[in-house]
């Protein structure tokens, strides 16, 4: 199972770097978003030390993960329409290796873009420490697996890219919007605060925030948030494996 999965994951990475538009889109869009929102809201923001550019920094890493995982998921629909997927399904490679290959490939791509972005932290006054980077690296990896698996789960059921865009706008984007990336949990109305607590991305982002700025930590304790994100990632991968198992 490992060889087919790794080969499929490698394909994701090779394909990605051969489509320049995707590289630019996934990397530049979130950074642009961060600079515009951060600089625009600037010091009007009262929470998080009063600097929005700094507050929005950790959430941008999640957004990079989200964008990359959406693009990777779209490739599942293209593979189905183009016939690549059929040839994999007709091979003796276990169904689960398809899930693993796609999810690991998508997650790796997200991580490879989100992690280097952390190196920009000093530009907004967030000092980098080895331990902070190491923890953030682990949390980003778990969040990336979770997002890639959620993307796979929905893309597998979508027959068209247009249909998947609807899911993306209804499920994936709102998940990021209420993850604490744009506003802190502390000041939200109680129903929103609950929605944020139920969102696995909030836990992931809380861990990244704590790792980067221990003086201004996320809303949840670090070990617990790491455990929640990892657990959700495993559950999401299992859900994908169950979905694909029924495919003839």
């Amino acid at each position, binding site marked *: 199972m490992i*060889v087919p999965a790794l080969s*499929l994951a490698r394909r994701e990475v090779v394909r990605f770097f051969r489509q320049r538009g995707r590289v630019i889109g996934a990397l530049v869009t979130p950074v642009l978003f961060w600079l515009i929102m951060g600089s625009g809201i600037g010091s009007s923001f009262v929470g998080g030390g009063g600097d929005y550019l700094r507050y929005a920094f950790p959430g941008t890493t999640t957004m990079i993960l989200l964008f990359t995982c959406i693009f990777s998921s779209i490739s599942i629909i293209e593979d189905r*329409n183009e*016939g690549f997927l059929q*040839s994999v399904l*007709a091979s*003796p490679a276990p169904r689960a290796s398809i899930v693993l290959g796609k999810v690991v490939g998508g997650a790796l791509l997200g991580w490879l873009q989100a992690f280097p972005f952390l190196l920009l932290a000093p530009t907004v006054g967030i000092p980098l420490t080895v331990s902070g980077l190491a923890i953030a690296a682990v949390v980003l990896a778990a969040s990336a697996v979770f997002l890639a698996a959620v993307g796979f789960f929905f893309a597998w059921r979508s027959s068209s890219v247009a249909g998947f865009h609807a899911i993306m706008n209804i499920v994936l984007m709102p998940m990021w919007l209420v993850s604490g990336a744009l506003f802190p949990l502390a000041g939200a109305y109680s129903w929103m605060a609950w929605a944020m607590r139920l969102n696995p991305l909030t836990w992931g982002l809380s861990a990244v925030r704590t790792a980067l700025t221990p003086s201004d930590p996320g809303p949840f304790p670090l070990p617990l948030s790491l455990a929640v994100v990892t657990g959700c990632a495993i559950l999401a991968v299992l859900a994908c494996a169950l979905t694909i198992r029924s495919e003839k």
Partner: protein
Amino acid sequence: MADAIEVRGLERNFGDRRALAGVSFAVRSGEMFGLLGPNGGGKTTLFRILATLLSPTAGTARIEGIDVEGDAARVRGRIGVVFQSTSTDKKMTAMENMLLQGAMYGLSGEPLRSRASVLLARFGVLDRANDRCEHLSGGLRRRVEIAKGLLHGPAVLLLDEPSAGLDVGARRDLREVLAGLRQDGTTVLLTTHFMEEAAVCDRVAILDLGRVVALGRPDALCAESGTDVISVRTREPERFRAAVAARFGGTVTVVEGAVRIERSRGHEFVPQLVESFPGQVDAVTVARPTLEDVFIRRTGRAFAEASA
């Protein structure tokens, strides 16, 4: 020894629509077998069942004696499948596609690489092995697909409409590739709606509305009636058909606007026909029956009409 492919009483329904209505045939080892039929005849449904991607409603299909439904995993290792839609990744090179395919079949390392090279060379694409598939012509890409399908040394190669989407030159080229496979003794089942492609096969089954309407060697099927086919272009085909039938008898039909007459010694019949209906015959051709004529005789419809 079990037949390479054995299909018995295969049925498949999609809701109320019956795509396969009890299909049976067997393909011997080393045989090139064609499934010929109009679009919607049931070819692709049958193909997908053999490729383990669709379950039959009733009946059985076996590859080398292994049931495709009961033991799909074992069947998958024994079949090479080339789909109608291209399965090569266009962003990857021909060689990268081969290596990826090999990994799906548990092959790796040097043995995989050398086998991939041998196959790419055999199909004349080794010099393009490091070109991305998006830069290959449709015909070359199809060759890579077939090389991919043979990579793990399958007992049976399944090809779904291998010439779909290819231009005339590439189709001719593909027929040579198929002829090569036939000479090598590769067991091949291919679906097609091109007569010339079916004619390359050792045997063909003609499928229409989910049933096998003819089964046998292409030349034997064509010679079966012992007649020639005379095709007449005329202004009023229906009236002409009735007049010819009344005067000469025999099988006279109108197919795609032409009057079609089956007759032995057609060359002797043509002068009689033209003299009997002066001024009414715009054009006339005499030909040996083709698989298309076999189809018309068995179903009463032309291929194009059946596809519509």
